[in-house]
Structure formats: C-alpha cells, structure tokens
C-alpha cells in the first residue's frame, strides 16, 4: 500500500529533476526503486526486524519536502554545533544551506563537496562509489534512499592527508519537513594513511512526524583511520532509519560511535567489513530513551580476512515505557583466522516498564579465533549506591550521578574531545544533576 504511494512519488520525482544528471544516475535510481518495490518494508517476520516493527513508517505516506525557504538560522543551530570551529556542512530538510556552512579549517588538498556538485564535476568518482557498499539489493531502506537521493556530502581524502579539525555534517529538520521524508547521503573515501573524524548530526528543529532515511558509505584504503560519529537528536515524534556501511582495507581503523536520544522510532544499522589483515572495527554507542521511544541498533562486523579485530561497547539507559534493541552480528569467514572480537552491551532500566532486547549473534567459521560477547541488563548496583550514600549523598542525587557515570563509560570512547564533552554535558543535564563545574 505505501509502496504504492512511493511509486507515484518516484514517477513524479523522475520527471521532475530526479531524472536529471548523467545517464547512469537515473538508471541507478530506477534499479534501487525496483528493488525497494520488490522487497517492500520489512516486517517482524524478517529476522533482522524481529524486535522492531516499522509498520508506523510503512503505513505513513511521507511527502517530499515542500519547496519553502528554510527558516533555520545559526542562532537556532547554536546548541547543536558541538564546536563552532569545526568544518561544517549544514543541510536543512535535505537541502544544502550554504549560508549556514563553513569550511575555514580545511586543508586545500581535501575535497569536500555536496553530492550535487560532485555529480556535476566528479561524475566518474560518484558513479564508482555511490551505492557500491550499501546493500541496495537486500536493504529496503537503503534502496529507498538511493532511489530518492537528492543531495548529500562527498568527502575525498587523498593519501597521507591527516585532517585535524573534524567535519561536522548537520542534517536539520525544521517545520517545513513536517510529515515529509528526507534522504541524507554521505560518501567518504579515505586514501592510504589518511585520517579524519566526521560527525553526522541529525537534529529536529521544529519538524514533526518526519522520516529521516540516511545512508553513509565509508571506504578506507590501507592504513586509513576514520572516526564516524552519528549523533541522533531527531524530534521525539520523528522516525529515523540509517545505515552506515564501511569497507576496510589493510591496517585500517574504523571507529564508529552511535549516540541516540531522539525519534519515536529509530533503527540504525552500523556495518563494517574487515576485508584485509590488520583491520580494526570499533563500534560503540549510547542510547538514552524515555516516554515510548523505540530505538534499535543492529551492528554487523564481517571479519573477512585474518588478523582482524573488532571491539563493540553499547550502553543503553531506558526510562518510562521505552524499548531498546541491540542486535550485534559478527561473521567470521573460514579464512579469518586470528580474529579478535569482543562485543559488550549493557542496559540500565530506570523503570519497571522499560524493556531491552539484546541479541548477540556470532557466526564463526574459522577455528583459531577469540570472540567474546557479554550483555547485562539491570538496575543500578547496590554497592555503587551505598558508596555514594556513605559519603552523605542522598538517594536521588546518588542515582542521578550513577546513571550519568554509566553513560560516561560509553562516551569515554569518543576521541573528539569537544564532542565527548558536549555529549557528557547533555547526559548530565538529562539526569538532572546540578550544573557541573
């Protein structure tokens, strides 16, 4: 039914700008749309969506964003900037907002452009990389994103290029996005021994009931070190689906952190393939939920060669009737001897009606590997509480401090100081602890 409504939208989109560009692009869109049509939206009968129903998304007809001028300005963005000195690309309702963006601290050899510009000026590169990693054949949301993709970011890091200042890509949904769908798209190609941190923020600034459906593809050449931080602070009645897919060459580090506090329903797929020896995937995250929010993370680490490593630490804090899902998949190919994998998921339930489904999923086809996983679900530890109380700190403050400390253990893995500090401050605020000094 809703797949039908997308058919009309896709027809309109194709005849109205969406069909433009080099010939391969409409062909890619068409292929992606055909796959989406064939797949349909996943249901809870699909193993990958067993704990998460996306019926609310499937049954809603999200419209294209209306072509009004964005109302967002820098003042409204200020609380979400992390650090005003970061290189910044701002998109409002999926469209690039040049006047809100800033590239002051970017080395000249780095190429950061909008997807629109890259298609116009660097078409060969985009053709080679767009949808080369994300699975548009099997992932209906990634297919839908690819069919409707309008703008986004293309980052090309040349070999040996080390960028000290992080890039902050902000996806803002303001009131013009209400009831609409937005399709953010990011391509990162990191050359040999390059290094950079990229933050993607998803921010609700007045929009309601919209759908963000994002895809980020990251290709790391030998020795590259890429940090990717996803900061999901959508409106609390919004829907958010995102796929991050990395492909790692030899001796690479891909460090992904997923922070999630927004959206009524969110699903984040964080996937990486360790395709050559020496690669390390670090997938960490923190989700803090309240009300009736539902937040699902699926991580997937594919150890496809020997001597690869993965580290995962996810923490969740769930209040009220919120529900969290963590599904950590690890696949170790027969060739991937000496794989070293560790996965941990800890959830803290602050109310009797909050719920977490934690499902590690290890498929190991090599015999000389070390793979561990651990999960805990629970309430605040009595010994910890006693420690704080024995220092004169009252129960409520003690609980707040310990909840904050629980969050900090995950946030500690963030390598960008300003980001870690700002997320710590948010967590601090959330748990009503007095202002830190």
């Amino acid at each position: 039914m809703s797949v039908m409504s997308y058919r009309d939208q896709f027809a309109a989109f194709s005849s109205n700008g969406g069909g433009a560009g080099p010939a391969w692009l409409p062909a890619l869109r068409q292929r992606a749309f055909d796959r989406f049509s064939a797949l349909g939206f996943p249901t809870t009968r699909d193993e990958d969506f067993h704990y998460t129903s996306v019926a609310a998304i499937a049954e809603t007809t999200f419209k294209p964003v209306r072509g009004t001028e964005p109302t967002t300005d820098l003042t409204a963005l200020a609380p979400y900037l992390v650090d005003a000195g970061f290189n910044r690309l701002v998109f409002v309702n999926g469209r690039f907002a040049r006047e809100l963006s800033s590239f002051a601290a970017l080395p000249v050899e780095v190429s950061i452009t909008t997807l629109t510009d890259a298609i116009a000026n660097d078409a060969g590169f985009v053709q080679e990389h767009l949808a080369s990693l994300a699975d548009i054949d099997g992932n209906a949301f990634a297919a839908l994103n690819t069919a409707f993709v309008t703008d986004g970011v293309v980052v090309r890091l040349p070999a040996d290029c080390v960028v000290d200042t992080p890039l902050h890509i902000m996806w803002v949904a303001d009131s013009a996005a209400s009831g609409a769908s937005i399709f953010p798209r990011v391509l990162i190609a990191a050359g040999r021994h390059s290094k950079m941190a990229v933050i993607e923020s998803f921010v609700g600034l007045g929009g309601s009931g919209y759908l963000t459906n994002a895809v980020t593809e990251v290709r790391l050449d030998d020795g590259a070190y890429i940090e990717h931080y996803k900061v999901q602070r959508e409106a609390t009645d919004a829907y958010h689906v995102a796929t991050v897919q990395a492909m790692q060459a030899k001796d690479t580090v891909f460090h992904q952190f997923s922070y999630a506090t927004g959206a009524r329903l969110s699903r984040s797929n964080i996937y990486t393939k360790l395709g050559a020896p020496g690669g390390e995937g670090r997938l960490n995250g923190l989700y803090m939920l309240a009300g009736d929010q539902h937040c699902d993370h699926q991580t997937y680490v594919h150890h496809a060669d020997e001597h690869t490593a993965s580290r995962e630490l996810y923490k969740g804090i769930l209040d009220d009737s919120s529900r969290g899902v963590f599904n950590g998949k690890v696949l170790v190919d027969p060739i991937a001897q000496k794989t070293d994998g560790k996965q941990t998921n800890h959830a803290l339930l602050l109310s009797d009606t909050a719920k977490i489904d934690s499902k590690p999923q290890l498929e190991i086809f090599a015999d000389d590997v070390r793979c561990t996983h651990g999960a805990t679900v629970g309430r605040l530890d009595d010994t910890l509480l006693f420690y704080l109380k024995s220092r004169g700190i009252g129960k409520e403050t003690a609980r707040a401090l310990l909840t904050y400390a629980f969050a900090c253990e995950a946030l500690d893995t963030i390598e960008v100081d300003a980001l870690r500090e700002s997320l710590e401050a948010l967590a601090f605020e959330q748990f009503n602890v007095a202002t830190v000094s």
Partner: protein
Amino acid sequence: MTLLSVTDLHATVADTEILKGISLTVNPGEVHAIMGPNGSGKSTFAQILAGHPAYEVTGGDIVYKGESILEDEPEVRAQKGIFLAFQYPVEIPGVTNAYFLRSAYNEIRKANGQEEIDPMDFLDIMAEKLKIVDMDPAMVNRAVNSGFSGGAKKRNEILQMAVLEPTLAILDETDSGLDIDALRIVAEGVNKLKRADRSTIVVTHYQRLLNYIVPDFVHVLADGRIVKSGGKDLALELEAKGYDWLLEGASA
C-alpha cells in the same frame, strides 16, 4: 560522653547469621583496632556501622552520639559524621573527584544547617587536603577511582576522609593490597587527621598497619563475636602466635 556504643549486635545476610552479639564502646579520641581471621565478620561489622543495605540487623543496637542510628540511611549516618573507607572502593566514570567530593561535602553541610560552599573555595580546601595524602593535584579532575591503581584508590579514600572530616572514621582493611610505601602514606594521613574529639576504628587482618596507626584497644573477632580485647600488645601477640589459640579458647 561515649561516642559509639554497640550492644549485643546481631546481623544476618540472606538468613545466615554473620554477627552473633558484638558489644563495643568507643570514646572520643580513641583508636580501636578490630582484627580477626578471614570470615570472622570484621568487614561486615564495619559495613553495618555505615548502614550497608545488604545486611539485616536482627538484634542489639548501635548508639552514636547518644542516639540509635539503626534506622538511619547511610547518607544520614554520613551527615552525622560517620565515614567508612571501603576495602574495595568503586569506580565512578565521568564524575570527577572534585565534583563528587564537593557534592558530598555540601550535602553534609546542608544537613548540619551550614551554607554550601562554592566551587572555587572548595578547590582551596582540596588543595590543602591533597597534601595530607601526598596526592597529585591532577587527581582532582580525574573521574572517581576510574582506572586508579589499588594503592591510589585507597589513598583516595583517605583524601575523602580528610575532606569530609568525620567524627567516627572506620577503615575497612585499608591496608590490604598496599605496599609498604603506600601503607605509610595512608597511615600518616590517618594520623594527621587525629583529634581529641575524633575516633577511629581500624579493621585489619594484619598487625603491620598498627605499627603506623597505634591503637588504644585491640579486639579480636571470630565467628561473629569479640573473643578477646586488649591493648596494642595484643596485636603483637597475634602477629607472633596467629589466631588459632584464640579460636580454640572461643569454642572451648
């Protein structure tokens, strides 16, 4: 006036009786050492004085400054001046020592009708107290015990004690796991905090610590009871003869 009076204290954990009638009187300014073999109940006793919720007091009373504190929550006991230095201090990631201690300090002040102190003035107090335990001032901005070595955690306990200035300090095996240098620093810290109106209960397995913190009284705990009390010489005797001779006497 007596500071602490424990009478015929019985306590259980998960229906197992751990303390089987302990009586102890501590006057202002006194240092009491509680020794005993593993499993004698000495750590349990220390934790019960501070109000650990895992234990249930099934008989007897704990009277502190003339009032029973059995019904008091741990934070209320702390606000009244009782401090427990933990055998295994916990880690609190993300919360700095400075913030944590100022929160504790101000809650105790508030409960005693005193004004809260602002962060700048508190840093001055911290700077002063750091010297007592010979700690690096940078520790003030580190998360509480997070990634600290065993020795640094114990030293941090004494720093907290120095800041909170308890009337009754209880040290629960503070010496365990410490090398001799760390032990000396910790003991000197405790000694510097001694005053005529403050008392200390030192729970320890070894006599070694008592070379540095000299007790006025030594009590030997075995199977949930005090089986022998004496002066500081008793500790030396225990060091030489072990606990067995007392245990035989207790069961005879």
